[in-house]
């Protein structure tokens, strides 16, 4: 397994981290791949504009007090018939600026996606390590659960979890909790990939001499798993995490599109597409078009980045 640290030509000289990184195979292959450069740039652009949305966005679409209903249905770059205001990407039925709403909506999409992947990753790594290292019944139970879960489409699992969790949440907290429930629902539907990869690596590594040595000097199983075995699994985990991020963003958009995700007062990209879909027949195309393009750009660039990452970190797969 080509590891980041070993594949880089490490010279004994005192080179800075950045210089060493710029010198690495990893960065070289990045520079040489136009797809990687473009998708990385697009991803960073979108992520940064989401993070700095309050600074970039002309209005705050989540503040109901700032909305003027008379601005509703303004086409992009055209002044509104009543208020004479003009908007880069037009406005939706509530008079919300579509551009600002996309920026804010992307924050929710990215946050939910990233948090869900993190949750799935932690859970998957833990279960993968445990089942690979201990084997026996523990492994059988965990991996059979994983197998069963793989037979269901993950979006159905997420909907099921979301529905159950929503049923248990008191009504008055539902809106605040919706985002967290969404994260857990998507995360729980996504841990299997991580668990399988980590388990595979663990099975290979646990019989190697260094693990036996660590055992002999009396290190605890947890220390061996986390400090010695896990680092070997990190590069495939990173690849899966990146691809999962794209899938989690799409899963969140799907759930919100179906109306079971983010509340309408805090629209994510999926909610925006759902709202826009209602006006598709009537000619107000911009309400759907821009959020859909943003979602496409985000999911595609993260996915391409993940693909390239897989190739770069694991040349054997080429």
């Amino acid at each position, binding site marked *: 397994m080509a590891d980041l640290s070993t594949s880089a030509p490490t010279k004994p000289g005192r080179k800075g981290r950045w210089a060493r990184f710029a010198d690495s195979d990893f960065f070289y292959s990045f520079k040489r791949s136009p797809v990687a450069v473009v998708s990385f740039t697009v991803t960073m652009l979108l992520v940064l504009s989401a993070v700095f949305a309050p600074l970039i966005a002309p209005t705050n679409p989540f503040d109901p007090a700032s909305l003027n*209903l008379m601005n509703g249905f303004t086409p992009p770059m055209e002044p509104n018939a009543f208020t004479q205001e003009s908007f880069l990407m037009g406005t939706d039925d509530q008079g919300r600026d579509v551009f600002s709403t996309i920026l804010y909506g992307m924050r929710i999409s990215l946050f939910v996606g990233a948090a869900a992947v993190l949750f799935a990753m932690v859970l998957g790594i833990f279960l993968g390590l445990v089942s690979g290292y201990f084997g026996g019944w523990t492994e059988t139970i965990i991996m059979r659960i994983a197998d069963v879960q793989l037979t269901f489409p993950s979006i159905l699992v997420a909907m099921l979890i979301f529905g159950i969790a929503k049923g248990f949440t008191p009504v008055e907290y539902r809106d605040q909790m919706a985002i967290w429930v969404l994260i857990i629902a998507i995360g729980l539907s996504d841990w299997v990939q991580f668990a399988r990869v980590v388990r595979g690596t663990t099975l290979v590594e646990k019989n190697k001499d260094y693990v036996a040595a660590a055992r002999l000097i009396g290190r605890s199983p947890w220390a061996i798993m986390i400090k010695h075995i896990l680092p070997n699994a990190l590069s495939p985990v990173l690849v899966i995490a990146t691809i999962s991020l794209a899938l989690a963003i799409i899963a969140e958009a799907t759930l919100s599109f179906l109306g079971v995700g983010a509340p309408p007062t805090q629209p994510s990209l999926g909610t925006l597409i759902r709202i826009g879909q209602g006006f598709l*027949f009537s000619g*107000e195309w911009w309400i759907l078009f821009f959020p859909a393009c943003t979602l496409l750009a985000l999911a595609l660039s993260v996915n391409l980045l993940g693909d390239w990452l897989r190739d770069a970190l694991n040349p054997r797969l080429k």
Partner: protein
Amino acid sequence: MLHRTSALVLTAVLATPAMAEEFQWAGRTDPQTMDPHAVSSAPVLGFLNNVYDGLVRMSKDMKVEPSLAESWEPIGDGEGWRFTLRQGVTFHDGAAFDADDVLFSYERASDESADVRSWFSPVTEVKVVDDFTIEFYTNAPNPLFPASIANWMIMDRGWTEANNAARPDKENGNFATLNVNGTGAFKLEDRQPGLTTTLVPNENWWDEAEHNITRATFTPIQNPATAVAALLSGDVDFVEPVPIQDAARLEASDGVNIIRGIETRTIMLGFAHEADTLKYGANAGDPNPFKDVRVREAVAKAINVDAILQTIWRGSAEAASQLVTPALSGYSAANAARPSYDPDAAKALLADAGYPDGFGFGLKCPNDRYPNDESVCQAITGMLAQVGISAELDAMPVSNYWPELRADNFDMYLLGWSPGGSLDHEHPLRFLASTPNEEKRLGSWNFGGYSNARLDELLPSILSEIDPAARQAMIDEVTALYQSEHAYVPLYTQPLVWGTRDNIELTQRPDNFFILRWVTVN
């Protein structure tokens, strides 16, 4: 002999050319129940009008006409009404219809467990005279009584009792929730709640069939855009409602017709009048500000109804000043002005009431009951935020919505009201404005518990007054009362927009009831 007759009938059936006129239609809300007494909502009553009959029914132009009763007349000097029933009518299962079924349906529909019991608040006694004559005695002269029971549907005593459904059960349901045994023009062939409901013609119907349908299937499609797509592709022959934004485009497209009208429904906001504390939002648990009339007036003044009509409704709805529309009888022309949009005055009123910094509360809203319901609620949330009160919007499907309102789980809510039956101002007065009173069967949809002694005092006189001028004077007084107390905030009257394939002929009734027996498939 019998065999030969059936053989003849069979040949006759086979000889007729196969004209299977199947009709598919889609609506936004699935009727919650097939029980005509369990839920008093338009989707339920409208749908069940196709399978059940009442003593009287509404014609295409909303006039009362005979149905299971052939005629009716007042008893004495306004003591009540005597109905002469139609003979030879049978229920779908073949049981004969007579006065005992009417008495039973009265007992069932006026029972505590029935949602429609307000219809019978004026009734003191029901007497069966003979098998086909029945008398309803009222506590005062009640000229509107026959019209007010147009949606009261007659069930069979034998069938209902045999199936343990002698009383409606709106919470848990019973046999009558999923099954139908009416006298109507159509029979229920198949019912899958939330999916499809299939009707077939009742070949033994007492009236002459105007339609040419051989089978009709109803599918609820919650998403209006999906419903429009289904209509355009020809998957369904009729959809209701068509989203207002799509009407213009559909009018221009081939193969589809748009039928427009103004509905008899008024959309309004209701308040928790009785609750001591707020239940939702930032100030949950604090004393309920909506008890203060100044706060309710502030809400009325904070809402820019014109903006809602202009944008969300694209100019095709009309602002409302009271609980009924100008087209209905009893409309109070003297009180036609609605509170003007004045956010500054609203802020001043809030400050005056002790809320200079506003407060947070919960707004309940359906998202599949009325066209644009959720959009309107979102817009209202924004407008209220501009005067400093922040609503936490909770929009939900109608099947959860009514139970939540009945359980008093709201601070403020959106409601639409169409006076089905009498089409008169007295209807919302009885259902929405009267103090809730189980015993008198009044105020059954007055969820917030609004109460005004003078209104309660005048209501019986309004119901019994024969002289139109005197009656209108009382209605005017009552209207001014509930307007000045801002019991509700009437918002607008919504347009009716129906879409059909162009080979379909049908009649749009202003109460938005879709009557299948008026449909012709060409």
